[in-house]
C-alpha cells in the first residue's frame, strides 16, 4: 500500500531527526564544538541511549492513534522507521552497558542480569524487540499476513517493560518515570477503548 503513495519530504526528515541524537552523542564523545559527555561519560552514554530508545518507542506508539484521528496514512509510513530507530538506540544502550559499563566481563554480565530485576526486564524487552525488527520488511509483512499484526502487538508488553525498567532504576525522583507511565497508559488506554467500542458495535450488529 505504501508504494502507491507519492513520496513526500517527510520521510527523510524523520530519518534525519532520528539520527540527531546519535550525531549529538558522537560530537560529544569526540568533543566537537565544545560538546561533552561530562565527568562520567559512560553513565551519560548509558542514560542518553536508553532515554532516546524509550522516547522513540513511545513515539512509535503514537503513530496508530494519530492515523486514526487524522485519517492520514503518512503516520503509518513513518511508524516502521521510528520503531526500527527505537530498537537501534535500545540495542546501543545494551551495548554501552555490556561493553563500556561492565567491560565485557561475562561473569559480571551474567550476574547482573540475573541478580538485578530491572536489568532482567530491560533485557527481556530488548529480546522481544528482536523479532519485531526482523519482521519489519514488506516481504515479512506479506508472508505473515494476519499473524504479522498479532506478532507486532508485542510492542505493548515491550513498552510496559521499558517504562518499568526506567522507573525501577531511578534513585529517588520518580516524577519523570511516572510521566512516561502516564503517557503509556494514555496510549494503551486509547487502544483498549477503541477495541471495546468496536466489539460493542459488532455485538449490536449481530443482534439485529
Amino acid at each position, binding site marked *: 500500500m505504501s508504494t502507491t503513495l507519492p513520496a513526500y519530504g517527510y520521510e527523510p526528515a524523520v530519518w534525519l531527526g532520528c539520527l540527531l541524537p546519535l550525531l549529538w552523542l558522537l560530537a560529544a*564523545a569526540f568533543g566537537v564544538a565544545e560538546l561533552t*559527555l*561530562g*565527568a*562520567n*561519560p*559512560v*553513565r551519560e*552514554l548509558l542514560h542518553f541511549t536508553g532515554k532516546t530508545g524509550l522516547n522513540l518507542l513511545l513515539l512509535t506508539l503514537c503513530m496508530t492513534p494519530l492515523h486514526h484521528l487524522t485519517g492520514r496514512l503518512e503516520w503509518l509510513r513513518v511508524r516502521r522507521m521510528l520503531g526500527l530507530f527505537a530498537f537501534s538506540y535500545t540495542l546501543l544502550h545494551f551495548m554501552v552497558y555490556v561493553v*563500556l559499563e561492565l*567491560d565485557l566481563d561475562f561473569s*559480571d554480565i551474567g*550476574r*547482573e542480569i540475573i*541478580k*538485578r530485576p*530491572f536489568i532482567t526486564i530491560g533485557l527481556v524487552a530488548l529480546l522481544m524487540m528482536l523479532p519485531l525488527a526482523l519482521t519489519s520488511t514488506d516481504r515479512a509483512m506479506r508472508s505473515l499476513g494476519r499473524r504479522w499484526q498479532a506478532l507486532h502487538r508485542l510492542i505493548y508488553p515491550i513498552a510496559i517493560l521499558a517504562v518499568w525498567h526506567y522507573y*525501577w*532504576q531511578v*534513585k*529517588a*525522583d520518580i*516524577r519523570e518515570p511516572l510521566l512516561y507511565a502516564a503517557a503509556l497508559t494514555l496510549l494503551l488506554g486509547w487502544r483498549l477503548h477503541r477495541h471495546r467500542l468496536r466489539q460493542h458495535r459488532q455485538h449490536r450488529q449481530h443482534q439485529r
Partner: protein
Amino acid sequence: MKDQPGYRILPSEITSESLFFERRSVIQALAASASLGFAGLAEANSERGNIAAPGKGVLSDPKFVKNARFSVSDPVNSWDEITTYNNFYEFGLNKDDPARRSQQFQARPWSVEVGGEAAVRGRFDLEDILARHPLEERIYRFRCVEAWSRVVPWLGIPLGDVLKRFEPTSRAKFVEFTTLYDPKRMPGQRSGVLNWPYVEGLRIDEAMHPLALLVVGVYGKWLPNQNGAPLRLIVPWKYGFKSIKSIVRIRFTERQPQTSWNKAAPDEYGFFANVNPAVDHPRWSQAKERRIGASLFASRVDTLPFNGYANEVASLYRGIDLRRYF
C-alpha cells in the same frame, strides 16, 4: 542505645581531663573570636573559587598546611571534575544542576547551631569555629554509593577536634548534622524528593576518628557552593551521601539519628554506609567503581573495603555483622 553494636567509647574518653580544665578558656576564646571577622579581604581575580565576603570584595584564599600522613597518593581529579559533577539535591537532581543552580547562593555569613548532649551549646559563627584550628589539606578518596569515585584535595579541620570543644557529655552517643533548609536559596528543596532538611549522623567514635574531616575548602580554595559551601563533612571510608553539605546544625544525641537516605529507602541505604565491595546495593554491584575523569574505554577499578581506609577504621566495627549493619 545499649543495643547498638560496637559502641566502645567510654564516657571518660569523650571529655579528656585536660580538656575539662580547658573548658573556661575555650568558652572565653569562642566569645573573643566572635568579633574576629575575615581579616584578609582581597580583590583576588583567579577564575575559580572566588567567594564573596559578607561585606564587599572577595575572601582571600585560605591558608593551610599539607597533611601528607592522611593523604593518598592516587592521582588527584581536576577542579572541573570535582565541581561540575555533583550530587546535591538541594540544587537539583542532575549532576550538573548544583554547579549551574547554586551560583547565586550566598554562603557567608554562616553560623552553626550546636545543641544536645554537650556542655557548650549555642550558635557559633563559622569563623569562630575555624579560628582555633589550622586548616589542613588532605587528599582523600571519595566513593559515591552510585559506584563512581574520585580523589579530592580537601581543606578542613579534624571533626573530632571541633566537637571536643563543645564538650559532649557521656550521654552523647551519636552526632547529628543538618543541612540548611531554605527553599528560596536552595531551589531543589521546593520538590519533595527527600524529606528536607537533609540529615546525616555518625556514631560518636566515628565522629571522633582522626580521618573524619570538617571541610571548608578544596584545591586550596574555599568550597564552591555546589560542593557544599561553606561547611561540609567528609567521612572518606563511607559512601558520599554520609558527607553532608552546608551544615547549619550539629546535635549530640543519645539515640541514633534518623538520617535522610536511610529514612527514604532503608533497604538500600544503611545508617553506617561504610564502603563495602562485598555488600551490593540492591540494584547494582558495589564491587567496582568508575573513576571520574577516566577515559570512555577505561575499566572500572576494584572498590576497597572501607574505601581503602580499612587499616585506620576497621577496628571501629569489630564484632559487627557488616552485612546486617550496612
